[in-house]
């Protein structure tokens, strides 16, 4: 069949396909030129920086660039005993340059990630190396600090030899590659990331559930009330949406604090004693309350837009056919709102999983999420590669949720309006 279609010619004798392409080429070029500025804008401001950031999570060239000679010398070292004089000499020469360039601090930070205790011995080495005499560097370096006689520290340096590594990802799930090259868990008292991951998932899940439970009746009212009431209600839903996130979180802080309005009200009504006010902030409760309120519009709007399209005569038809209001709702109305539920839940869950400001302000120690940890590494420890590794893990998590949703409900069933 295709061979026959190829033979079709226009009245001028040009093959039809060719002629069609020609006539549409101009439009295609025009269309491309119209979107080109946006495309370049996105490339420069989005794809490139994000790609660069994500690349950092596996990029481990920093140390190998700082210690080029050392790694060349280390190639022959089997890592069982202390390295040879050759390695010590190379390390001394590399480090000397770093100290002269005043970049030795970076190396100590990087090596300290790998093994605690590097910072102090490197500092000491920086001071002492000025008085080093030529030859027999092994002895001289080992004399600086006893840790230089510990083979583990040299192994730690060698572990940083590869230019790319997934060690940050292991760290993100509280694992590391030990001296023998096995992937093992960190000691129990240091497994903070796993707690944060499960807490993030838990908070995102429950916030989604709370949002759904609260948004469904609101959206139903919005879709069924007469215009004059539903407009007012819509404004009530949207007004917080337009208010700054920071302001809303701050108002929750005013409401929820121990001397806050909600607690005052509880005391006033006699629900709790004045000296026994419950803590509703700087813990998970605060995170739940504030995030649910803030993310509520993201659930209401998709639900509303779907409910608006459901004809009221369907409910009437269900009732006239003998379905009780309950049966009619669950057999007819509810299934028809599933696209909206899916869209709303996906939206809220994805937003909640990466939420930052609210947990940072009202979460306290037990209410912070993985995004706060990412921010911590971005701003305080400056371990950007670890931050971006966790960011990528978060993104992978979101994509996994999306994939599961697609399998269960089907992504084309989503309706945002």
């Amino acid at each position, binding site marked *: 069949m295709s061979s026959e279609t190829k033979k079709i010619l226009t009245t001028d004798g040009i093959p039809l396909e060719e002629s069609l392409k020609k006539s549409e080429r101009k439009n295609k070029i025009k269309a491309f030129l119209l979107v080109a500025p946006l495309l370049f804008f996105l490339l420069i401001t989005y794809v490139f920086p994000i790609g660069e950031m994500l690349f950092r999570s596996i990029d481990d060239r920093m140390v190998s660039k700082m210690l080029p000679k050392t790694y060349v010398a280390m190639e022959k070292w089997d890592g069982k005993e202390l390295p040879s004089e050759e390695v010590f000499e190379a390390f001394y020469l590399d480090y000397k340059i770093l100290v002269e360039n005043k970049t030795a601090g970076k190396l100590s930070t990087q090596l300290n990630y790998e093994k605690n205790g590097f910072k102090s011995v490197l500092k000491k080495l920086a001071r002492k190396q000025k008085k080093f005499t030529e030859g027999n560097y092994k002895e001289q370096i080992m004399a600086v600090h006893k840790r230089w006689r510990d083979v583990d520290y040299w192994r730690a340096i060698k572990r940083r030899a590869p230019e790319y590594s997934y060690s940050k990802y292991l760290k993100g799930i509280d694992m590391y590659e030990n001296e023998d090259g096995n992937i093992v868990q960190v000691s129990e008292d240091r497994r903070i990331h796993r707690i944060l991951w499960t807490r993030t998932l838990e908070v995102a899940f429950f916030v989604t559930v709370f949002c759904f439970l609260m948004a469904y009746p609101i959206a139903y009212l919005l879709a069924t009330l007469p215009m004059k009431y539903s407009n007012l209600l819509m404004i009530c839903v949207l007004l917080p949406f337009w208010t700054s996130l920071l302001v809303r979180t701050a108002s929750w802080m005013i409401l929820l604090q121990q001397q806050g309005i909600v607690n005052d009200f509880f005391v006033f009504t006699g629900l709790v004693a004045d000296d026994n006010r419950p803590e509703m902030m700087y813990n998970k409760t605060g995170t739940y309350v504030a995030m649910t309120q803030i993310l509520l519009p993201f659930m209401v709007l998709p639900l509303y837009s779907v409910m608006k399209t459901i*004809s009221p*005569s*369907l409910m*009437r*038809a*269900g*009732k*006239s*056919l*003998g*379905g*009780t*209001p309950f*049966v*009619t709702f669950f*057999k*007819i109305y509810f*299934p*028809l709102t599933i696209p909206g539920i899916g869209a709303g839940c996906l939206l809220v869950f994805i937003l909640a999983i990466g939420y930052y400001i609210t947990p940072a302000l009202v979460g306290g120690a037990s209410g912070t999420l993985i995004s706060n940890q990412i921010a911590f590494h971005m701003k305080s420890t400056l371990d950007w590669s670890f931050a971006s590794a966790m960011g990528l893990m978060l993104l992978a998590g979101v994509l996994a949720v999306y994939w599961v949703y697609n399998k269960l409900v089907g992504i084309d069933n989503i309706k945002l309006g």
Partner: protein
Amino acid sequence: MSKNEQFVRFDKVDKSYDGKVLVVKDLNLDIAEGEFITMLGPSGSGKTTCLMMLAGFETPTNGEIFLETNPISNIPPHKRGIGMVFQNYALFPHMTVYENLAFPLKVRKVPKDEIDKKVDKALAMVSLSEFGQRMPGQLSGGQQQRVAVARALVFDPKVVLMDEPLGALDKNLRESMQYEIKHIHESIGVTVVYVTHDQGEALTMSNRIAVFNDGKVQQLSSPDKLYEEPVNSFVAEFIGENNTFAGEVTDINKNQCKVKLGNGTEILANPIRVKAKGEKTIVSLRPERAIIDPKENMQNKHKGKIEEVIYHGDHTRVRVNMLGNSEFILKVPNSSARMDIKLGNEINIGWDSHDCRALDPK
């Protein structure tokens, strides 16, 4: 089987939505068992409100509705056992045709094999047996409509309500669906209350028609009577085409009255809603009852000037200026004998005084 003449009874029903305006005023209406009754009227006349009250989606402000002598105002819609076909079909879009039809049976806890039997029968009735597994979205408008009809009938309701069910269909389909619904009604004998604003539909399908206007039933009678013998000028104008003359009664006896028109001419008419001399009246005459070149013995004979000729295929519509009415319409069957119907010609027109009804003035 003796038929219950008061199967459905509206008893002094009033309905108001806002407490200011009555949408339905003092409605008294008896519907017999097995009857096909149509509520016909312009939009806003209260016909759909009546239907919704019967279905249970609206409650009467005053009065009571009886179904088989039981008052039903306090019965919720799902317990009334009344089937309903909606204007936009209201098929459940997430269910197959089969599931749509099975829904009323499932909620009644009918056993599975019986559901299958009934659904198959209902689908066969609307000749859609092959379509059970389709989704409503995959059907054409006419097919959806038939599914909606089948769904309203599948649980053997006592009464089926139809709210302008053919409004969204094109003309040809509408006509064939009219016959189909009529045949279904005849074959299963269910009581049907049908709401429409399309008089052609009402005339074709119904046993009786209730013409609604302004919240009131203007006339309740069989289609032919409604057309031939309208009791007031609203019905006369609403049903079919109508030529009217406004005038005043100058003489009246039992069978005939004289009406003096605005231009001074007197015509003879059938007194329907006029009782005494001096009353204002509107005289109504169906276009097909006026003939060209009348015989000598016709009571009304007048001359008119042809102002417009519109060819309609099987007949020609002729607009004539006559007795001060420039909108006088004649329907002339097309035949070779009528070649004198040309613009500007003067023709003789006559009609029986019996066909020309003196009704209430508006």
